[in-house]
Each structure stands twice: as structure tokens, then as C-alpha cells.
């Protein structure tokens, strides 16, 4: 074929094209192979489910069968998936039955093996299951997983540890929890919701001793868990706030009337986000005298300040709708009047 080409470079180009076509053919074979593998795997899983799903479902409503089928080595992953799915929705006694079945077939052992030696999918499924099993023997392996650079694997390992022993997890892993910015606040808060009492004091203590980068994350978690920080701690945070974000985070969790005198000056803060949080705070815990402090914010240049101030006023138990309407009618600022109308309409609609 090279002789056919007058120019050797044209031959090179031609063979690049041929090579690409051959490679495409190989990839096509790979695609077909993958599809066959997926189809075969689906069929295997269906066969597995036809035996094990009815068995596990019946154990949810009655007792554990005396004789369990043998679980093939190749079906272990299917078992982990099925068991985990059922466990999440199982009420207490049913969860006990499922746990008995899992231990009876050695699920804890092969899950720990997956955790040590498995690929990412096996590791993740094993992590989920060991957490549901409350398997203490997997503790060290799971702690190692929390240090993984992969955030999905690590946060689910953390979740498993919280399920196994929340107190120990709080003692050992709070610093890691606060340092891992790749663990989303939303997901972390969801995990901690079931272990609030365990994490309360470690999180509160963390506000005493850490740098400001972790402080904001700590405050967000405290807020998400609706934990109450002691008044002295909040006061110290307010006095020593090294950034606007830290100040905002502190205002969001403040809830003690004794702090009112300290927070009122923030109504005039130059950052509108601080003014918003201060208005919200006064709406939660403010006194009657705070009404007159809030009214000027109805004419603030920032929409969100006006909105939250109007909501704060509307939320004060000693400030009735009639008084709000009267206030609105007497305001000279159009934006303030519009905002109060908006909030009054929201309250009427809810």
C-alpha cells in the first residue's frame, strides 16, 4: 500500500485513518462486551432477587427463617444492595431480623473484606452496610476510610461511624469533620441530625479553640442542628469575630435575650448581611422597644434588609396585624410601605 502513495506522508495519513478505524472497531467490540456483561449481570441479579427478596421481605413481617440459602460469592454485592435498601425503610423489629440474617450469612465478614480490598463500589456498599449493622469490628477500617481523599467514600464512612457509636465518633472525629470542607454542610448536617446530643459539646468546644476558617463551618453546623450555644460563648464570638462571615454565623445562632444590648448596634453595620441577621434576631428575641429600632430599616437601601425587617416586625408577638397596617399607612417611604404590604399579604396567604 505504501508504494501506491506518491508521498510517504500521505501513506502515514492513510494509515492513521486505517488505524483509527481499527481502533473504532475494537471500541465497538468493547461496547458490545460491556452491554453483554451488564445484561448478564442484570439477569444474575434478577435471579438472585427472585430468591432473596421474598425471603428478606418476609423477615420484615415475621421471624427469621430457620434455614437460609447459601449466598454465592458472586452475589455478595447484590445482597449488600438489597439488604441496604430494605434496611433503610425497615421498622425496628424488622431491622433486627435483617441484622440477624446478615450476620448469619457472614455479611459482616465479607463487608469488612470489601472495605479492605474492594474497589470503590464494593467499598461504598460495604461502608453503608457496616454502618447499618452497627459493626464495631469495622471501626478502625472505617476511620481509615474517613481520611480518604474521595469525599463520597469518606463522608459515608463517617456516617457509618456515627451510626455505630455516635459518642466515640464525636470524640474522635470532630476535628476531621470540621476540617473537611469537601463534605457538604447539607449532607453533614443530615448525618448529625440523628446524633445531636453526641456532637453538641464537641461542636460547642470547637468554637473556643479553632481558627476562623473552621469557625464558620462550625457555626453553620451548630445552626443546622439547632444547638444552643451558651450566652457567654456567643458573647465571646461576637466580641472576637475576625470576619464578617463569622459575625453573621454567630448572629444566626444567637437566641438569648441577654445578648440584645450587644447586638443592637449591628443594625447600623456597613455590611447589609449583618443588618439582615440582626433584624432577624430582633424579630426572634426582641423587646417592644426594638420596634422603633427596626422601623428605620424598612427604608434600607438593600431589598433583603427591608424584607427581613418587615418579616421580623410581623413576627413579633406583641405587634399585631392592625398595628402593622397602621404603621404602613403612616410611613412616608414608598419602599417601606410596599414591603410591609408584601409581608402582610404573605401572612394573610399562609
Amino acid at each position, binding site marked *: 500500500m505504501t508504494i501506491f502513495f506518491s508521498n510517504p506522508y500521505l501513506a502515514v*495519513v492513510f494509515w492513521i485513518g486505517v488505524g483509527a478505524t481499527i481502533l473504532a472497531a475494537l471500541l465497538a467490540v468493547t461496547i458490545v462486551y460491556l452491554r453483554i456483561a451488564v445484561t448478564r449481570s442484570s439477569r444474575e441479579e434478577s435471579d438472585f432477587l427472585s430468591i432473596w427478596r421474598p425471603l428478606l421481605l418476609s423477615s420484615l413481617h415475621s421471624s427469621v427463617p430457620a434455614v437460609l440459602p447459601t449466598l454465592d460469592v458472586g452475589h455478595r454485592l447484590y445482597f449488600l444492595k438489597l439488604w441496604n435498601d430494605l434496611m433503610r425503610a425497615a421498622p425496628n423489629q424488622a431491622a433486627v431480623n435483617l441484622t440477624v440474617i446478615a450476620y448469619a450469612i457472614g455479611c459482616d465478614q465479607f463487608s469488612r473484606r470489601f472495605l479492605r480490598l474492594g474497589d470503590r463500589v464494593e467499598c461504598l456498599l460495604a461502608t453503608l452496610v457496616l454502618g447499618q449493622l452497627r459493626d464495631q469490628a469495622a471501626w478502625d477500617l472505617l476511620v481509615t476510610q474517613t481520611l480518604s481523599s474521595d469525599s463520597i467514600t469518606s463522608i459515608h464512612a463517617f456516617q457509618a461511624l456515627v451510626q455505630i457509636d455516635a459518642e466515640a465518633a464525636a470524640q474522635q472525629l470532630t476535628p476531621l469533620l470540621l476540617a473537611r470542607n469537601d463534605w457538604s454542610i447539607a449532607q453533614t448536617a443530615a448525618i448529625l441530625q440523628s446524633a445531636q446530643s453526641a456532637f453538641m459539646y464537641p461542636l460547642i468546644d470547637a468554637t473556643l479553640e479553632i481558627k476562623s476558617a473552621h469557625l464558620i463551618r462550625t457555626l453553620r453546623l451548630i445552626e443546622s442542628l439547632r444547638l444552643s450555644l451558651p450566652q457567654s460563648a456567643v458573647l465571646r464570638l461576637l466580641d472576637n469575630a475576625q470576619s464578617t462571615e463569622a459575625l453573621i454565623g454567630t448572629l444566626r445562632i444567637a437566641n438569648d435575650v441577654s445578648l440584645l444590648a450587644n447586638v443592637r448596634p449591628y443594625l447600623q453595620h456597613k455590611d447589609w448581611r449583618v443588618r439582615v441577621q440582626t433584624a432577624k434576631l430582633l424579630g426572634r428575641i426582641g423587646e417592644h422597644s426594638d420596634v422603633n429600632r427596626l422601623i428605620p430599616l424598612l427604608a434600607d437601601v438593600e431589598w433583603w434588609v427591608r424584607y427581613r425587617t418587615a418579616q421580623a416586625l410581623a413576627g413579633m408577638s406583641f405587634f399585631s396585624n392592625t398595628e402593622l397596617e397602621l404603621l404602613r399607612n403612616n410611613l412616608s417611604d414608598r419602599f417601606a410601605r410596599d414591603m410591609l404590604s408584601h409581608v402582610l399579604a404573605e401572612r394573610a396567604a399562609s
Partner: protein
Amino acid sequence: MIIDGIVWCIIGYFIASHGGHLLLNMLAFRSMRGAEQAKILADLPHVHSGLEPPISMLLVTHDGVTGVVESARTLLNLDYPQFEVIIVNDGSQDGTMETLADTFDLLPFPEAYWIQLTTQSVNRIYRSIRHPNLRVLDKTTGGRADALNAGINASRYPLICTIDARVRLERDCLHRIVMPFLRTAHTVAAIGAVRLKEDDRYTKSLLSRLQIVQYLRSSLFASLGWSTLNALLIAPHGVRLLRKNVVIEAGGYRTDARSEEMELILRMHRVMRGKQQTYWIGFVDDAIGWQEPSSDLVSLKAQSILQQRMLADSMRKNVALLSDRNGNLAGRLAFLFSTVFEWFGPLIEAASYTLVAIAFLTGIIAPDACIAFFAVAIGMGILLSISSLLLEEISSHAYRQPGAIGALILAAVVENLGYRQVNAYWRSFGLFK
């Protein structure tokens, strides 16, 4: 000599184009490492902590009374802890407003409307009694971009989500598309992938499969590849989740853009680079929704021409990205690549096929040069199409009908034996029309 030089330039262009897209596919493959884990997690019930960022969904309608109610119902049924739906009625004359009012029990609401972006006047704002998270803006006609800006003005939440009207959303789409925002606070936009639905009608199935292969090759995995470099400039149509304050800072949607969505993404890159702030524009390759492919050649041609015009317009309006001294290598490379291979690519491809064919038929070039050209153009094209199918098979197995994979492989070959060339000609028209 000159002819030889032109032929070599053409061959070099095709090698560079296909080679570049293959590299993008490799980058996309690297980013799929978490795909298997994500599938397992996606099957688990979502645990809501209440801290997922709330989202404002914007739906624009103009004389679309037949579809807007169904679209609104779809949005209201989405599974997500906190979101609102804002329908912007952009001066419809077909009774849209009355239909919406009857269907959703709308009442006028004295909203303190905040004008952050200038738009045509908003006549009235309504709120649904039945669905507290649904509001409707009735405004003077100003076009889709103007309506989206009005929706932004009315939105309460820090993230705004816009949807192409043709897309049918998965119920948990918001959980998937919000993930880049949960991973890092630097995310300013996330583009959600949609898949083309396979047309089961026998007579038209080949056309739909050709479009599927083309979509996977040019829109889906190329976008994923670029997003790994934070250089996703030409975002495919579908679903977008944007950080509102960045959109406002960029000036909102341009009313003079042919594709306001595409142009905005480019401008967001410019704005963030101008500020020299760390930012991320991500691509979520997990299927957020589905859309129907074009059902016939006439509509396909019109769509191809329109898309090319939109792309050209967006690129032209943001050509400053190429010379932006704050732009990084990835950004400049992405813009240069998109200019050469996407913006002017169809014209170069169409002209190349035409020139080589004419030159061969008139004896100006030798048969060996013609053979070499077609070998590399078609061979590498087939490799690119097949590699995109492989990525699809690894990531989502979206097309599971019996025989679908075989048919798609065949379509990947056929695509490069005429369909792609015809498409290049159509898209070239889009540059001149």
C-alpha cells in the same frame, strides 16, 4: 504546490479537530470515576437536612397555553426540599394568563418587586393559593431574555434554574444538578445534561439514532471534557442552574443575543475572570432530563442552522475572552478551539469536502491524496463517534432497548458517511443566513 499546501492544511485540520475531541473524551472518561458510586447513591432515598440551597425555577411562556400548564405541573412535582416556581407570562395573547389563573387559583399579590435588571414593565404579580411556592409574573412582551430577567428580579433564592421548553425533567433532577454547588462554594453555574430520547418509530429510528450519536459526540462528552478544565464555554441546551448574584453582576440575559443562555455562560466566564476570583462552571453528565430528537430532515436542518447562528452570535459577543489578560490557558485554548472547530468548523469542513471532491474529479489532486484525506476524515470521525458511545455505555446505559446498542454503533459509522457532512453544510448556511 498551492493545491498540495491546501490539501495538507485540510488534512491537518481534520486530524487536529478529531484529535482534540478525542482528548476531550479522554478527559471526560477521567471525570467518570465516581459514576458507579453516584449510581448507587442515586438509588438511595434522599435525606434532606434543610440546608440544601433553595432554588428558583424560571419558566417563560409566550402564547404557549397548551404546554405551560403541564410544564408548571412537572416543575411543581419535582422532588427537592425548598424551591419556588416563577412563571413569566411574556405578553401572551392566547389566554395563557386566564388558563393559569383558573388552573392554579392565582390571586394578585402586592409584591415588593425588586428591579435589579431592567426589563419591560411587569403589569401584575400573582401568587397561587393552592401552591404557595408558585408565582406568576404578567408582563409586557420583551422576549425570552427579558422575561428571564424579570423572573430573576422576582426570585427569592440564591440559585436560579432555567429550562429549555423541550426538555422533560427527571423528578430528582434538582438533587443532581445542585451537586456542584454542594461540592464547592466556588461553583457559579452547573449545566445539566439531557439525553435524546430514542424514537421507536421504525421509519424514523435511524434519524433519531444519528442525532443521538451526534449529540453524544459534539455536545455531551465534549462539554464534560471541557468542564474538567473549567473551560466549558459552549454549554449545550438543557437545564442550567446559576448563582443569581453572579448573573446579576454579569448584567443578566442579553435581549439582543440569539441564544441568551449560551451567551450568558460565556459572559459569566469573562466576568469572573475579570474579577480574578476562583470560580467553577460544572457539567453534570448524569441525565437530568430527556428531549425528543427532530422527527424529520426539514426540522433537523432548521435546528442545525439555528444552533450554529446562536453559537456564532454568542462567540462574537464574547470574543474578548480570547485576548483577556486574566483568562487562563484553558479558557483561551477553549475559546480558540471553539472558534476554529465549532464556530467556523462547519464551514471549513464543508469547504474541505467540496474542494477535495472537485480537485479529485478535475484531476488537480492525485487519487492517493484523496484517499488519504477521506481515510483520516472518516476513520477518525468514526473513532470519535464510537468513543462517545463507549463513554455513554460506561456512564449511564441510557439506551437499553433490545438491539439499541448495535443500532447505535451502526449509526456511529453511518453518521460519518454522509450525515455529518450534510450537517456541516447546513451549519455553514447558519453562518451566512
